[in-house]
């Protein structure tokens, strides 16, 4: 067909026109082979600009369009839509970037204009070879998978479930609630954490549209946006959840005591246990590593089973027969359209900072340990006490432990200043101890946060600006005997000082959980340099990832407080719901095509494909591209030793023409 190419040169105000002589470029373009019309205009992306194009298509019968303006990542979709509205296939379009690639990086006007001409000539030559491609649409499965049952996961699940769509809420712990369930009061309102969380937990546990899968882990993910297949392993609790009433009698009977993870090891739990009092599901489970019977089974012995049998003296075991030592893990497969990853955080372990004495000196504790101590449902019933049970007269809170430190984590963990001040308030409330906060900067950035700081100052907490160099028990004076001594520089005074205290609380930072790499690989999402999952764009797309259909919410994307976590969870829910409500998703048309006649079945393409979009047909011994998964990256095209793969919209012909146009 006779090419009738329309070329439109944009001024972009003065962004391009300030350096490139747009009129000259238009005049030049007009003389190129195949060009039916060449114009220049101030703002091509605007309504009148787009109208120009549409008008020319209609009136001049254009069958190809070139726009020389900004980057395709900015406006390629805009112009493609415009020409589509005028009746042309959107792929009969090519953009020449004469802004980012010419005007924004050139100083010499003459040279810039020449460069622009070269790029336009290249585009014109290329567009001649463009083929009409059809975008495909696939149906979306309206189910959603939420990975992680902390406040982020719970909130996202509730919002989606309330819209009438089904959610699978998976958590590897035996109860949902995450770290928020461990907290005492939350800043800055001092709401009781459990009081605001448990209603949501209960709702999530009983919502008709939420299938709760606790003590479960995602094992395998395959598929693509709108059509994921997920294998989930439901670990054996050795309890029939249908029969267990949560009465807890078995817990009383069990003879085994081990450190309680929920209580941060400060107290003990049994081998058969309920994760915590408000757990959802409010049922027990058996820990196979410590249960005497399960351990005995491995050696062929039948021991204990007191939880079932009961104990002498009339104490009956489980009456409903819920205990099932034969239970196995169950692997199920679910189909979902989108996934929200809300796997949360892990607290930095300060044991690696030798000079702070954690794990070595008594009464040096982490922030999570303090939360449990001050919590009335915790191991000390809310009494702030030292290891020996006595009340501390002075407590030091050290900020930035493991954060803002190139030896551990360079980033700031965002919440520690606020929770440290919260601790100061709680200590003042529960005891008459002196409280000292050691900080470098106070970060009280949120709504009501600075006011909270003021309140803490007024309550009499002493703020000392200086990051402690060490915590030691080696006394240098009589006053220091038997105490923990914090050695630091009081920078506002300009002197090295030593302060003897009874207890030191380390405000540890937040870091990604230990299995973050495995989870990332499973869902094909990447991580930023700080180790947290990488969002699509830090400002404009903070809950999406580069993998379509996988979203993020909460601390797994970066440390944040509860308000921001909930906001992100709702944003992720909105993303999922937007997809569900569209019902279909458009997949990239520029995909790779394997010429099966030329394919030798070497599978090199399959191995290099970063999107797992290529499969091998065992019968025909050739490879095939799944167009819905293919992102058109071209790795396979370059890799194929037999030149059997071509990439739509990036054919050899098109690229060579582009090069010729630029060089001549």
């Amino acid at each position, binding site marked *: 067909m006779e090419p009738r190419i329309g070329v439109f040169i944009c001024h972009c105000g003065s962004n391009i026109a300030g350096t490139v002589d747009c009129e000259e470029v238009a005049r030049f373009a007009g003389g190129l082979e195949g060009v039916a019309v060449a114009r220049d205009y101030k703002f091509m992306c605007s309504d009148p600009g787009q109208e120009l194009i549409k008008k020319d298509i209609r009136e001049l019968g254009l069958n190809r369009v070139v726009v020389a303006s900004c980057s395709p990542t900015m406006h390629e979709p805009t112009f493609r839509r415009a020409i589509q509205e005028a009746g042309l296939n959107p792929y009969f379009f090519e953009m020449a970037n004469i802004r980012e690639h010419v005007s924004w990086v050139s100083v010499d006007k003459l040279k810039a204009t020449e460069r622009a001409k070269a790029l336009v000539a290249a585009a014109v030559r290329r567009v001649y070879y463009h083929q009409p491609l059809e975008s495909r649409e696939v149906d979306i499965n309206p189910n959603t998978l939420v990975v992680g049952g902390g406040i982020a996961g719970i909130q996202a699940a509730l919002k989606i479930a309330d819209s009438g769509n089904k959610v699978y809420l998976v958590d590897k712990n035996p109860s949902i609630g995450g770290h928020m369930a461990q907290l005492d009061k939350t800043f800055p309102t001092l709401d009781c954490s459990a009081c605001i969380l448990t209603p949501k937990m209960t709702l999530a546990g009983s919502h008709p549209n939420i299938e709760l899968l606790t003590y479960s882990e995602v094992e395998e993910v395959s598929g693509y946006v709108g059509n994921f297949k997920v294998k989930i392993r439901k670990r054996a609790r050795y309890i029939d959840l249908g029969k267990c009433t949560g009465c807890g009698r078995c817990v009383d009977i069990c003879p085994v005591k081990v450190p309680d993870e929920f209580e941060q090891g400060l107290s003990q739990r049994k081998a058969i246990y309920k994760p915590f009092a408000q757990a959802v599901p409010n049922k027990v489970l058996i820990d196979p590593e410590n249960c005497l019977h399960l351990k005995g089974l491995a050696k062929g012995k039948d021991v204990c089973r007191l939880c079932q049998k009961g104990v002498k003296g009339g104490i009956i075991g489980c009456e409903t027969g819920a205990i099932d030592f034969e239970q196995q893990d169950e692997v199920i497969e679910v189909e979902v359209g989108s996934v929200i990853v809300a796997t949360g955080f892990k607290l930095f372990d300060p044991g690696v900072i030798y*000079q702070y004495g954690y794990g070595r000196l008594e009464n040096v504790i982490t922030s999570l340990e303090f939360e449990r101590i001050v919590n009335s449902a915790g191991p000390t019933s809310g009494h702030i006490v030292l290891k020996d049970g006595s009340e501390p007269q002075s407590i030091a809170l050290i900020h*930035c432990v493991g954060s*803002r*430190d*190139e*030896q551990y984590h360079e980033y700031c963990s965002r919440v520690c200043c606020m929770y440290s001040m919260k601790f100061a308030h709680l200590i003042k409330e529960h005891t008459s101890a002196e409280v000292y906060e050691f900080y*470098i*900067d106070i970060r009280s950035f949120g709504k009501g946060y600075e006011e909270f700081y003021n309140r803490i100052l007024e309550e009499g907490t002493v703020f000392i*600006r*200086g*990051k*402690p*160099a*060490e915590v030691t028990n080696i006394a240098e004076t009589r006053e220091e005997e038997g105490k923990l001594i914090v*050695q*630091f*520089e*009081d*920078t506002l005074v*300009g*002197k*090295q000082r030593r302060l003897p205290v009874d207890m030191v609380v380390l405000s540890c930072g937040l870091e990604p959980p230990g299995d973050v790499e495995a989870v990332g690989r499973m869902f094909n999402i990447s991580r930023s340099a700080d180790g947290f999952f990488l969002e699509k764009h830090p400002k404009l797309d903070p809950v999406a990832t580069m993998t379509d259909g996988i979203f993020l919410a909460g601390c797994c994307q970066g440390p944040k407080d509860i308000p921001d976590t909930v906001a992100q969870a709702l944003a992720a829910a909105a993303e999922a719901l937007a997809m569900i409500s569209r019902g279909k998703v458009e997949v990239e048309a520029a995909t790779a095509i394997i010429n099966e006649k030329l394919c030798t079945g070497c599978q090199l393409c399959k191995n290099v494909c970063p999107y797992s979009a290529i499969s091998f047909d065992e019968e025909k011994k050739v490879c095939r591209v799944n167009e819905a998964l293919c992102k058109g990256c071209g790795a396979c095209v370059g890799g194929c030793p037999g030149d059997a793969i071509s990439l739509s919209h990036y054919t050899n012909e098109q690229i060579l023409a582009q090069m010729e146009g630029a060089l001549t």
Partner: protein
Amino acid sequence: MVSFLDEVKSTPGGKHILACIQCGTCTGSCPMAGSMEYPPRKIIAMIRAGMRDEVLASNSMWFCLSCYMCTARCPRGVKPTEIAHALESLAAQHGFRIGGTSTPPLYRSFVGSIKSNGRVHELGMMVKFYLSILPELISHPVAAIKMAPLGLKLFLHRRLPLMPTRIKGRGDLSKIIRKFKEVRGNN
């Protein structure tokens, strides 16, 4: 006109001085912080404020033990020990008189011994040092006399040879030092 900050930045260990967030970990870790006129963190703040005379005239860096505790703990990768050495060199090279410490004369005796022998003759260095602080010794005679047993003990245990070892290449060493000063001076 090179600013004091730039002067310090261009020394071998001074590159990262701008990374300092003034957290005070260096001072907190320093065994000698109490003896210094200005503690390490403040010195860095003063460098950034361009207070050249005050910094170079201070005795702070001369109390540095080179224990590197500050460098090991600094969360920003600043090297206060190396900055201290650089400041000592700048102070010495620009003829600042340092009060409140006998360390500069000790160092000078040490370096003097190297330049004469190629190696440090410890007895000779100690003698030279005590002579250089003679006025102080005379004003504290008891303290001075108390030093004698220590020297004697070391001598009796073969740890203070009377004669220095002179290396063959000590002439070479002087030539190298002279040439280096010339080459640096030209740049």
